[in-house]
């Protein structure tokens, strides 16, 4: 850890005027130390207006996602078809194909992108508080690598063929839950789940599962199968249908509702287990609850979209840089930010090299990394005591 004095000096001096209001004069009580002219705190963006702006942007982006594509539909036509679908308006006979593209292909895909993005961002927030680790993401608990084993068993070995189109999702979900249970049982001690054991167990298990996946790809892959395995490992929303949206949406919304109710307790847990206990929060119970919620949401999301990285790791940090660490605000903004990010990532991934599709993971990294690094340099952001 850096010596305290260097950290204090490293605080970025922000002119008071830039913060909108003058600082009140500091009363000089006997206890007021010489540092009365302390540097002001980190800049914060008000969360509610930010959330409102993001929600609006998300709506506009969903329309964009439906309008943009290789089929050459015009904006006015797309808007008319969307309105027709919502209000039951009439269609021209020659618009049936365009209507199908808008309502059966692009819209479910855009909505699923939003749902997946929201779910990953929110569970990322939850997991980082649960294990108090800056590098944690929803996949640190072995979920995605477990799901990959399940998905690749279907892709490579043709397992669960009797389930038809559901085979991939069902197998990935089952494998994700199985992996979580394994990690949970291994990490558990008499004193409950400790953060470090959870992360270490999850990481170790992930390596094991990844090895299994690699073995399957190595042993069984023919050209196209290896390609779809790759696509799945980097995430893809290409398989989106209205069939996969409701179950993912319900799970993610339920998860968000739970986390919204747990926001205050997450603050306490983030300060440490003993602090949480002294504030009336049972850390073991909260961690168990978070584990179950994270497992359900991540398992569902991974089952419909593959292992989309980066969103669950970076969006929580990105949002904390903007609105601060308080979980009430973070959990209001993060799902919207995650949804917005993934909607645009998906637009780019399917249009940049159309008709070929880029894996989502490639685009999230390309869009997210520069944006993240830029914000981190501009704002004095600290996590884990470093600046």
């Amino acid at each position, binding site marked *: 850890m850096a010596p305290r004095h260097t950290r204090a000096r490293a605080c970025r001096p922000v002119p008071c005027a830039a913060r909108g209001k003058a600082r009140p004069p500091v009363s000089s009580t*006997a206890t007021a130390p010489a540092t009365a002219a302390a540097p002001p*705190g980190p800049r914060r963006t008000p969360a509610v207006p930010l959330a409102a702006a993001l929600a609006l942007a998300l709506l506009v982006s969903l329309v964009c996602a439906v309008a943009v594509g290789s089929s050459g539909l015009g904006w006015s036509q797309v808007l008319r078809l969307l309105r027709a679908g919502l209000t039951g308006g009439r269609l021209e006979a020659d618009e049936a194909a365009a209507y199908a593209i808008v309502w059966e292909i692009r819209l479910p895909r855009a909505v699923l992108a939003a749902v997946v993005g929201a779910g990953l961002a929110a569970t990322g927030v939850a997991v980082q508080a649960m294990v108090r680790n800056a590098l944690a993401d929803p996949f640190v608990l072995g979920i995605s690598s477990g799901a990959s084993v399940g998905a690749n068993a279907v892709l490579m070995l043709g397992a669960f063929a009797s389930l038809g189109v559901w085979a991939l999702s069902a197998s990935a979900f089952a494998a994700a839950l199985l992996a979580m249970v394994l990690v949970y049982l291994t990490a558990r001690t008499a004193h409950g789940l400790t953060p470090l054991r959870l992360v270490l167990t999850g990481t170790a298990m992930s390596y094991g599962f990844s090895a299994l996946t690699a073995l399957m790809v190595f042993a069984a892959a023919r050209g196209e199968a290896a390609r779809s395995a790759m696509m799945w490992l980097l995430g893809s929303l290409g398989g989106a249908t209205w069939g996969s949206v409701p179950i993912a949406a319900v799970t993610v919304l339920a998860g968000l509702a739970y986390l919204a*109710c747990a926001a205050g307790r997450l603050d306490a847990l983030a300060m440490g287990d003993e602090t949480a206990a002294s504030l009336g*929060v049972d850390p073991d119970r909260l961690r168990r609850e978070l584990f179950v919620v994270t497992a359900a949401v991540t398992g569902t999301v991974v089952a419909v979209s593959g292992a989309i990285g980066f969103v669950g790791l970076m969006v929580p940090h990105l949002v904390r840089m903007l609105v601060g660490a308080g979980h009430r605000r973070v959990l209001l903004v993060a799902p919207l930010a995650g949804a917005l990010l993934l909607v645009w990532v998906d637009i780019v991934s399917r249009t940049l090299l159309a008709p070929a599709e880029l894996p989502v993971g490639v685009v999230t990294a390309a869009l997210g990394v520069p944006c993240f690094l830029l914000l981190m340099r501009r704002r004095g952001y600290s996590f884990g005591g470093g600046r």
Partner: protein
Amino acid sequence: MTALPTTALPTAALDLAVDGVSVDLAGVRLVHDVTLTAAAGQVVGLIGPNGSGKSTLLRCVYRALRPAAGAVLLGGDELHALAPREAARRVAALPQEHSAEFDFTVAEVVGMGRLPHRRGALAGPSAGDADRCAEALRRVGAAHLAARGFLSLSGGEKQRVLIARALVQEPRVLVLDEPTNHLDIAHQLEVLALVREAGPTVLTALHDLNLAAGHCDLLYVVADGRIVASGPPAEVLEPGLLAEVFRVRATPVRHPVTGALQLLLDRLP
């Protein structure tokens, strides 16, 4: 030195009673059958060498640990039978833990002290909460830090902010684990005077024997997980016991100005 009370405690009249508490951690008994009491408004000190079990005992009193035997009683109610939030409205703590990973502002950290008072899971800070927090920060001399990031504070500033958080919890009992850690001498005296003024019953672990002598109504001496002496500071802090428990030579003197008991300490010959 007074004899330890071994019969049934008149617990209802006491704010805090630790009744025959033993604590195990990882299969090892660290605290053995400890009994101590604190009457309303008293400042009770816990002194003892490193590793004697002070912190472990305190962790039982703010519910971070569950005793293997015995009970912690608050005004006659068993602490570990209360709902966690109810317990946190009665007992606040300053733990020794320093694992702040997230860059909360000072105002947010203090605001967490209102968590056990919130109505409903979705409820945010109430109207009065901000005033209470500002007042508590003012009392610990940290009002000017409210907008700062908690992680950017010095050790002593953090300690004062955490004491403010414990105060806004408005507890009957305040448990402090080395509250003077990291504090400069002015703030050490300030904080101990402050927690006495603040009104709650205080149970505090202290390393500095002179601070313990000057600020506690009652001292309990812990060694190897057991209470080995208890009573008013002037009775407890006698050279024979200090030599035995702390392995130091203590020479009691009277402070020339205040007349208070002071200990001059050096190595055993």
